[in-house]
């Protein structure tokens, strides 16, 4: 229900209450007043009657009393004969006549029965005559006559008749009086009752009306309060949203000061009055404002216009002015009420946005890629110029999901799947697929789609670009081709190398074997018949062939190290060293060697290769220390900088550090073959083996002061830092082979 309806209903109710109360109260008052008036009339009339009756009764009593006075005077005179006693009689005679006359008047008025009054007059006359007769007799000194007359009882009889007559009339009057009194009493009681009842009724009505009115007053108060608050809120709202709230007359003239306008523009009341407000508006905008006003006021419609307004500080601001006409009941415009809002920031933001939009469009239209923007649901709402140029399509064809017509039907399902997956998840995607050009040729495009998300992470728009990767693809293909060719070449070269190795192992060894074998056969067959020189030469041939065989074998091992895959297992280096020493036992024959073996780790490595490396190192140590007695060979390990470093140290011939680099090269030897035999391949193999395990090799030494060979392995390969402990110092003595073993910790 609307507040207006409620108010009118309340008003109607109030009117009904007031009317009802008024009518009821007025009716009750009228009835009450009528009753009181009537009762008053009755009382008045009865009172008059009462007074009359009282007067009549008085007359009657005075009549009786006067007669008695006359009789008393007569009797006194008769008894005394003195004239003095006759005086009441004389006075009574004078008074009696008007009394009678009065009674006759009353009788004429109907207040007394006229028959009785005339009877009374007659009796009175008779009495008076009797009295006068006696008095006259007395005056004549005829006392006895007078007394006889008195004794005749005639006077007494008349007197009794008069009394009876008077008493009768008085009694009637008294009865009448009493009846009137009773009437007055009754009327008064009725009046009181009526008065009391109406008063009570009116009081009740008043109370009811009071409560009704008070209730409505309270309601009105509440409604007024609500309205006041609403108004306050409205005012705050207007003041918060608008810089100026204004009012003009129907012509647009300012006829009352507008404080907010003055505050904003710095104009005074006088300056703004009339059309003075126009002066604060930018001159270029004034005609537009005038026109807007003219149109709006003519149509009695909303006045709305934007203009530049000079603020009090001289700054020009963009203002949006709006006003609505307030109409009189006859439809004429009474006034215009409106606001001025500062929209400068908005306009500037819009201008910036337009500029940015323009920049974006220019950029998007000038770039070589195809670009587009899609709604969160995937329907595309914008393409750059390049898209239309490339595909030769029209904006109408491209609407929504129209882009599909530029796709290759074969790749379209995959594209749709990816696109729909991205729409569902909000994830960006990259994809290469063909797009048909205006010339009907499909070219591969790298498509990159990025979502623009709001703060809640919801996709607002999708941005997509399609980059022609034809050239790239070609280049890639060319590159791939080149890589393939290179790989093939490499594979071929590797194969050749393998074939070479293969050939070496077969074909190089075979003639050697033949030389060696036939020399051996020759020696057996004809040896005894040869002279010493020839026998020595035959021996040289045999040895040369043997060394050549060793060289070839070592070379093959070296080449295999590089090619074979690592068969990694857990290797206990301590046990590996012990095995190597056993294997090298023949080389140690007849020597005294002090072994000092420290803790060695367990590592993850190719056991056979690592063994080969260790054998090589130990073999070298044994070989180059053979001129020492006792020879000392030390092994150990330590952890350093992400590696485990192992070393083999001997007190042998050593080497010149200047040639340290050459040590690990193939066929590099630092000693004459006469001194120490060897192929010059062993350390090269060690280096290859360690490199294949991700480690390094190096050496330290000095001529005749021993050498230290180091190799490292990545710490990741270490399973357990300390290997099996040797525990006891044991000295092994076998014929011609003395070995000291010492545990170093």
């Amino acid at each position: 229900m609307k507040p207006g309806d409620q108010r009118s209903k309340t008003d109607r109710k109030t009117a009904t209450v007031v009317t009802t109360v008024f009518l009821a109260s007025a009716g009750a008052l009228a009835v009450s007043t009528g009753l009181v008036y009537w009762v008053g009339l009755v009382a008045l009339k009865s009172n008059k009657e009462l007074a009359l009756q009282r007067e009549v009764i008085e007359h009657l009593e005075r009549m009786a009393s006067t007669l008695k006075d006359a009789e008393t005077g007569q009797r006194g005179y008769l008894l005394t004969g003195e004239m003095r006693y006759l005086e009441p009689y004389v006075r009574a005679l004078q008074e009696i006549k008007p009394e009678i006359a009065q009674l006759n008047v009353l009788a004429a008025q109907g207040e007394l029965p006229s028959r009785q009054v005339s009877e009374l007059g007659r009796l009175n006359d008779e009495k008076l005559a009797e009295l006068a007769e006696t008095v006259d007799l007395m005056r004549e000194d005829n006392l006895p006559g007078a007394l006889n007359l008195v004794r005749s009882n005639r006077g007494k009889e008349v007197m009794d008749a008069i009394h009876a007559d008077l008493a009768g009339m008085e009694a009637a009057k008294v009865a009448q009086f009493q009846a009137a009194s009773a009437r007055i009493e009754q009327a008064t009681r009725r009046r009181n009752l009526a008065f009391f009842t109406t008063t009570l009724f009116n009081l009740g009505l008043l109370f009811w009306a009071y409560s009704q009115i008070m209730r409505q007053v309270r309601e009105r108060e509440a409604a007024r309060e609500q309205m006041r608050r609403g108004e306050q809120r409205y005012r705050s709202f207007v003041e918060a949203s608008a810089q100026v709230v204004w009012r003009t007359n129907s012509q647009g003239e300012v006829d009352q000061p507008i404080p907010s306008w003055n505050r904003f523009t710095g104009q005074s009341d006088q300056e703004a009055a009339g059309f003075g407000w126009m002066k604060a508006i930018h001159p270029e905008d004034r005609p537009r404002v005038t026109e807007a006003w003219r149109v709006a006021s003519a149509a009695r419609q909303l006045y709305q216009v934007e203009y530049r307004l000079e603020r009090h500080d001289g700054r020009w601001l963009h203002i949006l002015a709006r006003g609505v006409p307030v109409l009189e009941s006859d439809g004429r415009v009474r006034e215009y009420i409106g606001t001025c809002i500062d929209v400068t920031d908005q306009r500037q933001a819009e201008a910036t946005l337009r500029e940015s939009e323009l920049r974006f469009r220019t950029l998007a239209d000038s770039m070589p890629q195809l670009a587009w923007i899609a709604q969160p649901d995937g329907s595309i709402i914008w393409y750059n110029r390049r898209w239309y140029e490339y595909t030769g399509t029209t904006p109408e064809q491209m609407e929504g999901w129209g882009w599909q017509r530029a796709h290759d039907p074969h790749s379209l399902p995959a594209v749709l799947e990816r696109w729909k997956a991205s729409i569902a998840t909000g994830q960006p995607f990259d994809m290469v697929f063909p797009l048909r050009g205006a010339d009907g040729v499909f070219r591969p495009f790298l498509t990159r789609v990025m979502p623009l998300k709001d703060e809640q992470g919801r996709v607002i728009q999708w941005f997509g670009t399609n980059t022609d990767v034809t050239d790239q693809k070609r280049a890639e293909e060319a590159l791939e081709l080149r890589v393939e060719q290179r790989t093939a070449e490499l594979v071929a070269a590797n194969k050749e190398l393998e074939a070479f190795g293969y050939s070496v192992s077969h074909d190089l060894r075979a003639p050697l074997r033949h030389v060696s074998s036939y020399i051996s056969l020759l020696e057996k067959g004809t040896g005894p018949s040869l002279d010493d020189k020839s026998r020595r030469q035959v021996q040289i041939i045999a040895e040369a062939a043997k060394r050549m065989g060793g060289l070839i074998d070592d070379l093959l091992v070296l080449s295999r190290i590089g090619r074979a895959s690592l068969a990694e297992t857990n290797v206990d280096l301590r046990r590996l060293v012990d095995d190597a020493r056993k294997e090298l036992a023949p080389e140690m024959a007849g020597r005294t060697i002090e072994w000092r073996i420290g803790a060695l780790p367990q590592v993850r490595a190719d056991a056979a290769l690592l063994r080969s490396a260790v054998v090589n190192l130990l073999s070298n140590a044994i070989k180059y220390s053979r001129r020492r007695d006792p020879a000392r060979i030390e092994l150990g390990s330590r952890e350093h900088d992400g590696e485990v470093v192992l070393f083999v140290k001997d007190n042998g011939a050593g080497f010149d550090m200047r040639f340290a680099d050459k040590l690990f090269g193939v066929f590099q030897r630092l000693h004459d073959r006469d001194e120490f035999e060897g192929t010059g391949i062993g350390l090269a193999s060690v280096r290859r083996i360690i490199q294949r395990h991700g480690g390094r090799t190096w050496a330290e030494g000095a001529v005749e002061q021993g050498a230290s060979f180091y190799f490292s392995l990545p710490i990741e390969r270490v399973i357990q830092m300390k290997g099996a402990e040797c525990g006891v110092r044991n000295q092994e003595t076998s014929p011609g082979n003395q070995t000291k073993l010492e545990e170093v910790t």
Partner: protein
Amino acid sequence: MNDLRRILLAEDDPNDADLTMTALEQRHLANAVDVVKNGAEALDYLFRKGAYAERPPEMPAVVLLDIKMPKVDGLEVLRQIRADPGLRCLPVVMLTSSREEGDLLRSYELGVNAYVVKPVEFDAFVHAVSDLGGFWAVINEPPPGFAQKPAAGPKPESSTHPRPTP
């Protein structure tokens, strides 16, 4: 020694063939050696085709194969022997100069019975060849119905000669 079964030696190098024969001779095993010069001839011999079509059907006690031969190499011969139901159980020994891991692996994959690298020194060569020839031709018991003349001897598993390992 006439009751010894024959040995087939496939060797392209006449010197090697000569040396092998010499080694076998020194062990008195050479009287029953047939020599072919390449893999193709070895297959002809074994399948009794071409020049060997008229050969008696007796199968050799052992085949000594060089790996590297012209036309058909030793590995191919081995493959065909193992693929043929009649020859599948024939003992084959690779007798080669190669220490190549690849050859060794391939040979064992194809089911070679032994793999011998010919030593450079003649004495060692003689030992290797004669031991092999002796073992396979004399000691080894062929599968039932394979050889025409069974001979008593220990099983290969209990052989005193270790099988070479890669």
